[in-house]
């Protein structure tokens, strides 16, 4: 087996974000790390929409990002710390729209290790140096400078190591132009490692240490080190230093030390200031719980600065420092607003706040005000004795605020994110859909959602209206060449034409010069200010003064097909003749003296737009009934001569020539594509050679069951093609690469571009008798999302085989269930205390739920109707029970009735795993699946993490035990048990009498059930330990699984062993066989292994295209959706593996990680080709492309075609 890995949807989580002027223009951009990808986002200041400029796979794990600018520079650089053991400085080149590696310095081993730097990055605010640190000990300082040619230079590293020191955070101090200083938050463990009494551990101090880089001596010294709060976790830079022009100080310099419950201002030789972090006054608050700051951002404005700090609850605090030159007078903190918990916060100079959420959708907010003069209570260090530092070891009295809705910020844009995908199922349940949908259980806590993902572009309908009849075509047209918007909509019916004018309203107009008594074949704004209508009996040339020049078809003939552009018109007559017209310099339409006889009925015609600065386009494509397409010259030298001919497999139904940019073929100028739609629903795309008019590089794609119609449209001012069949597809250029994606919209019969003031980049289409105006808001996305909100973090979901509903279990740790909340409130009320209803009723999806101590759970079972995207029912679990597994089981003891079994546990603790009691809840599915009736609860001694129906009974993984249960009257009856599993059973799958058990730590076990002896026997296992996160059976002997470190692998059992086990009636043979490697008697063989870089949370074996092959579709925690496609032939394997090898050498990773080492992070990559790497072939420079293609004995086009074919046949994407 050989697999091809393709990522359909790259990870959508943002682990870090930085803001800067990366393109060197005045506009600010945001660079985000998506774990294994770097993206440059550009927020539009006018519309507030965030768009992706470039996205690049780095083939490594990004751990830290920082931004710096050299003194006097105008452009920002990004520094990337990763697991490559190298520091990389990236520059964004707006010309080629790519990241350019400016420097790559190796300092250590690869991998996210304890003492290899890469975890933390800090830069000097003046861009003179940077520090990169590890979690323990190692800190390296690099000096940044310019050489004579003003290029960025980087020095060799200077060590600032401290042995036995754990590093919590580092930050660059703002010291102006004095020697750069870095502050680190460190703890020394050497003493606590030696002291058996534990006293040293209790007294361990967290030190705030300053490291000064002496630029003169080229040396780093530990300048200052003082103990600070032992629960400090984060440092924030405070502005300082003098401006060059004046003596004034920007700020006091130093750092904010964010601790549990407190913020401390700290600087060398300066008094400390301490303020409490205000808490929500919530009746359900856990008073023992501290509050920490998890994200922070400092913003400098003219002559002022402030901080926004975010607590782990999502509350933003505005922190200000009152200072007199370098002396701090007061540190003040107040509640600002509440936004989703962020992994990074970015403030843009244009007044936006970008919140890269740690889970769920990312948000862009606009500042309305800065909370300067509101009634929010402010807490100042001056109101405490000695600025709050009278007794640093005891906490300050707690400060409280009242959470409320957004006041200072407004939401302007949201970036959809699937992160985290906890479970997913691939099903095709939508009516009239030929490709399956992915149902992904996403999100965490109250922001969770169940999302339905469909392949296709989202379409936003602007307006739709019913028409009196069924039109067969629609056009829009401007009146003059330089009009910004369209003025007319022309609808063609079987026996007439209707013209509508676009204004305040859309209404019919009569005196347009268009013939209304006949259908229309083509409409064109021609020349400077004239219009053209082609109808079956002639061509009407409507001049600007409404005079009409008409060309009439000779008697007995009609026009069957027409194509037009701004200067040329070609019509085909029913006599299979072509007539060619061209606009002369006076604006007169002149017929070419000869007509061209084609010999076969013409079915379709197309000419391209007139290239800029030219008189005409030189080629005409003609599709004839004899199943050919001919390219005919329109050049004055050889007018109407046939240049080339292509044979087809079916009669053509439409042709469309368009000049589109595809960087895979030509990096600079657009390529001329001839798209040929056939009557059998197949689309051929060929490239027209601009020199000799030959057709090359044909690619085919099946679009649908109806004859194809092709329409040239404008997509964001670039040419695109709409292909209409039984589904509508859009072919467009996005980020210089060609995309071909279906539209998720009603079937269209005809469509055209539409541009009006309210909808400048829209499309207009007809479906049946309805006219629809729509636009495509999210170009570049391949999956459309529809979501259903959930209450708690989804854990698992299951489909019912008969009723089509999804049963989903949700649960949140450290959250009180609804019954516990009510009990606690009643208790408070009984004590006579008042309950603040306002705070209680705050929406949980914004403010989250109050945190409860460990071991507290809120959970429930949800029934979802996926077709109508709604929740049918929600059954909360009470008594601190939480659901962990779910299955639909048809019990043969109940005549095969399907029951829902939910594995739950009460008072569950995660570490170490314990519960007061586990339960298997058996529910009767009533009311056509819309409701559940609890039949009984069966107690278990451990958490049932996996349940599954098996041969009319239930098989359950209860902690370390695998058990078989049968239905009983009062509870489930335990029939047989196997307790040989080592840690905990997390997945179950079955076929026949075989059960595949995934263990939390020890990989996959093959178990067989022998009914005569009532035995569950483990007969095979894996030779390696694996922390299984998901597993699925590929066939009877093969299993594909993902583990917790981001690997996906395929194991197979020898078929001889399989047969032998199946043939043994009692299992006595297996029982007495000798174990191998302290395990089962047989071992599985590793067939394929691949490091995805994201934790695989579900694997589904599905076929994504109608009639296509089955592939393995996996989802990753950070929002990845990918597929593993088995290769069909040995040649393909050889070809693609060789291409991958070449790509590895040509396409270096952006973070400097070796590709082979990355894909073989834990276990060497085996029998899997990285399709994402291969597909970057399209982005390589042309010379490299041709040299690689040469080595493979192919042309560049053939390589690209092969790659596209692999993608399209497997996924349809």
């Amino acid at each position: 087996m050989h697999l091809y890995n393709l990522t359909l949807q790259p990870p959508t989580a943002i682990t870090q974000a930085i803001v800067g002027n990366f393109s060197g223009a005045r506009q600010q951009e945001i660079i985000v790390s998506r774990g294994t990808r770097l993206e440059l986002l550009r927020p539009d200041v006018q519309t507030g929409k965030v768009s992706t400029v470039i996205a690049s796979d780095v083939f490594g794990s990004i751990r830290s990002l920082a931004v710096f600018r050299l003194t006097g520079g105008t452009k920002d650089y990004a520094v990337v710390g990763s697991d490559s053991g190298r520091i990389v400085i990236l520059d964004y080149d707006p010309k080629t729209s790519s990241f350019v590696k400016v420097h790559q310095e190796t300092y250590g081993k690869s991998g996210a290790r304890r003492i290899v730097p890469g975890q933390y990055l800090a830069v000097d605010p003046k861009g003179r140096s940077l520090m990169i640190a590890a979690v323990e000990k190692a800190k390296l300082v690099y000096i940044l400078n310019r050489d004579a040619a003003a290029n960025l230079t980087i020095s060799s590293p200077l060590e600032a190591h401290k042995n036995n020191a754990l590093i919590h955070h580092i930050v660059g101090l703002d010291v102006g132009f004095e020697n750069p200083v870095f502050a680190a938050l460190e703890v020394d463990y050497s003493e606590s490692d030696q002291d058996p009494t534990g006293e040293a551990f209790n007294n361990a101090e967290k030190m705030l240490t300053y490291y000064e880089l002496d630029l003169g001596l080229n040396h780093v010294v530990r300048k200052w080190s003082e103990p600070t709060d032992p629960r400090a976790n984060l440092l924030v830079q405070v502005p300082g230093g003098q401006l060059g022009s004046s003596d004034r100080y920007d700020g006091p310099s130093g750092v904010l030390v964010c601790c549990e419950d407190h913020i401390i201002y700290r600087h060398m030789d300066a008094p400390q200031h301490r303020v409490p972090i205000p808490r929500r006054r919530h009746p359900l608050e856990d008073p023992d719980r501290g509050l920490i700051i998890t994200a922070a951002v400092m913003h400098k404005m003219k002559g002022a600065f402030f901080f926004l700090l975010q607590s782990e609850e999502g509350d933003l605090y505005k922190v200000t420092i009152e200072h007199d030159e370098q002396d701090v007078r007061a540190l003040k903190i107040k509640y600002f607003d509440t936004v989703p918990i962020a992994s990074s916060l970015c403030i843009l100079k244009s007044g936006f706040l970008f919140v890269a959420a740690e889970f769920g959708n990312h948000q862009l907010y606009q500042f309305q005000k800065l909370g300067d003069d509101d009634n929010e209570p402010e807490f100042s260090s001056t109101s405490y004795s000695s600025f709050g530092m009278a007794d640093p070891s005891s906490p300050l009295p707690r400060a409280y605020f009242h959470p409320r809705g957004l006041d200072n910020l407004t939401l302007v844009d949201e970036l959809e994110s699937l992160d985290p995908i906890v479970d997913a199922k691939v099903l095709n349940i939508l009516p009239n859909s030929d490709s399956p949908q992915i149902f992904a259980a996403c999100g965490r806590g109250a922001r969770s959602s169940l999302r339905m993902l469909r392949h296709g572009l989202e379409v936003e309908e602007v307006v739709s209206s019913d028409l009196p009849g069924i039109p067969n075509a629609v056009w829009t047209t401007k009146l003059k060449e330089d009009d910004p918007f369209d003025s007319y909509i022309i609808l063609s019916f079987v026996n007439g034409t209707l013209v509508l004018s676009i204004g305040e309203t859309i209404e019919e107009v009569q005196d347009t010069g268009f013939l209304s008594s006949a259908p229309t074949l083509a409409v064109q704004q021609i020349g400077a200010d004239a219009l053209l209508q082609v109808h079956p009996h002639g061509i009407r040339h409507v001049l600007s003064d409404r005079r009409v020049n008409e060309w009439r078809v000779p008697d007995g003939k009609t026009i069957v097909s027409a194509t037009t552009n701004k200067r040329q018109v070609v019509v085909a007559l029913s006599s299979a003749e072509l007539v060619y017209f061209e606009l002369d310099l006076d604006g007169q339409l002149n017929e070419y003296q000869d007509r061209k006889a084609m010999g076969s009925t013409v079915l379709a015609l197309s000419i391209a737009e007139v290239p800029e600065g030219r008189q005409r386009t030189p080629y005409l494509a003609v599709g004839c009934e004899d199943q050919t397409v001919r390219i005919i010259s329109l050049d004055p030298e050889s007018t109407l001569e046939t240049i080339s001919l292509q044979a087809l497999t079916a009669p053509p139904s439409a042709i469309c020539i368009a000049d589109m940019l595809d960087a895979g073929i030509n990096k600079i100028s657009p390529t001329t594509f001839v798209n040929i739609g056939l009557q059998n629903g197949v689309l051929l795309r060929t490239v027209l050679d601009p020199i000799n008019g030959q057709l090359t590089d044909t690619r085919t794609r099946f679009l649908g069951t109806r004859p194809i119609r092709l329409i040239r449209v404008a997509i964001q001012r670039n040419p695109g093609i709409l292909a209409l069949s039984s589904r509508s597809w859009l072919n467009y250029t996005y980020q210089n690469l060609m995309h071909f994606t279906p539209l998720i919209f009603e079937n269209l019969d005809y469509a055209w571009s539409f541009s009006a003031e309210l909808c400048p980049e829209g499309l207009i289409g007809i479906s049946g008798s309805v006219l629809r105006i729509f636009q495509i808001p999210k170009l570049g996305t391949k999956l459309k999302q529809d979501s259903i909100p959930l209450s708690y973090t989804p854990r698992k979901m299951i489909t019912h085989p008969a009723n089509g509903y999804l049963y989903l279990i949700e649960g949140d740790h450290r959250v009180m269930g609804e019954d516990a909340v009510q009990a606690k409130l009643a208790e408070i009320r009984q004590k006579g205390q008042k309950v603040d209803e306002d705070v209680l009723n705050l929406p949980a999806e914004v403010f989250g739920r109050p945190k409860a101590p460990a071991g507290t759970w809120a959970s429930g079972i949800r029934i979802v109707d996926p077709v109508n995207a709604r929740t049918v029912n929600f059954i909360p679990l009470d008594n601190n029970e939480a659901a962990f597994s779910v299955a639909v089981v048809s019990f043969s003891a109940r005549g095969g009735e399907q029951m829902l079994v939910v594995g739950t546990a009460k008072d569950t603790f995660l570490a170490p795993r314990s519960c007061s009691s586990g339960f298997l809840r058996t529910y009767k599915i009533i009311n056509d699946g819309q409701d559940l009736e609890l039949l009984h609860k069966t107690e278990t001694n451990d958490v049932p993490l996996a349940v599954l129906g098996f041969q009319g009974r239930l098989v359950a993984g209860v902690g370390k035990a695998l058990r078989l249960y049968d239905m009983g009257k009062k509870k489930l009856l335990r029939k047989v048990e196997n307790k040989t599993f080592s840690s905990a059973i997390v997945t179950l799958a079955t076929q026949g009498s075989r059960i595949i058990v995934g263990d939390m730590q020890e990989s996959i076990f093959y178990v067989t059930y022998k009914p005569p002896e009532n035995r569950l026997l483990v007969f095979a296992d894996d030779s390696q330990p694996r922390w299984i996160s998901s597993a699925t059976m590929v066939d009877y002997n093969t299993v594909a699984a993902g583990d917790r470190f981001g690997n996906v692998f395929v194991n197979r059992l020898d078929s001889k062993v399989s047969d032998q086990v199946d043939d043994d009636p009692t299992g006595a043979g297996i029982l007495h066989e000798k174990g191998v490697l302290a395990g089962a008697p047989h071992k599985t063989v590793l067939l394929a292994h691949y490091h995805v870089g994201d934790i695989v949370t579900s694997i589904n074996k599905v076929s994504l295209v109608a009639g296509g092959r089955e592939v393995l579709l996996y989802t990753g925690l950070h929002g990845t959706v990918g597929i593993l496609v088995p290769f069909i032939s040995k040649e393909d394997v050889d070809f693609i593996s060789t291409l991958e090898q070449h790509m590895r050498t040509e396409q270096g990773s952006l973070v400097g990680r070796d590709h082979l080492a990355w894909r073989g992070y834990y276990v060497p990559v085996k029998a899997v080709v990285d399709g994402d790497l291969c597909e970057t072939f399209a982005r390589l420079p042309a010379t490299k492309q041709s040299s690689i293609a040469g080595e493979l004995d192919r042309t560049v086009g053939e390589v690209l075609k092969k790659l596209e074919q692999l993608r399209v046949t497997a996924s349809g994407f």
Partner: protein
Amino acid sequence: MDKQPSLPWYGHYPKICKPTYTHVSHTQSSELRYTANTQLEHLHARYTGTGHADLTKYEWLTHQHRDTLSSIVGHPTLLSYLSIADGEATGRVKFEMVERMLQPCGPPPAKDD
């Protein structure tokens, strides 16, 4: 020290990085052993976590846990995974992981001499 490490997920948690062992053969001549030992000391100073012949169970375990904890902090997906399981913010999980690195396996056993 026999205390189960308590990470917020079921059961044990992964030991990701194995400590590197440097074997010193006992058949070497004393002189050679001397130079090898200085090399070893150098290695130990340079590469924290390197094992040696006299490594105690406590030291080995502490190294394992510190390696694991730092690996969790260093892999964004693992950090997300644990924080979803535990219902805490990733920032909190990261902080608690680094805090725990100070003494992941309790105080060292008393020396009996």
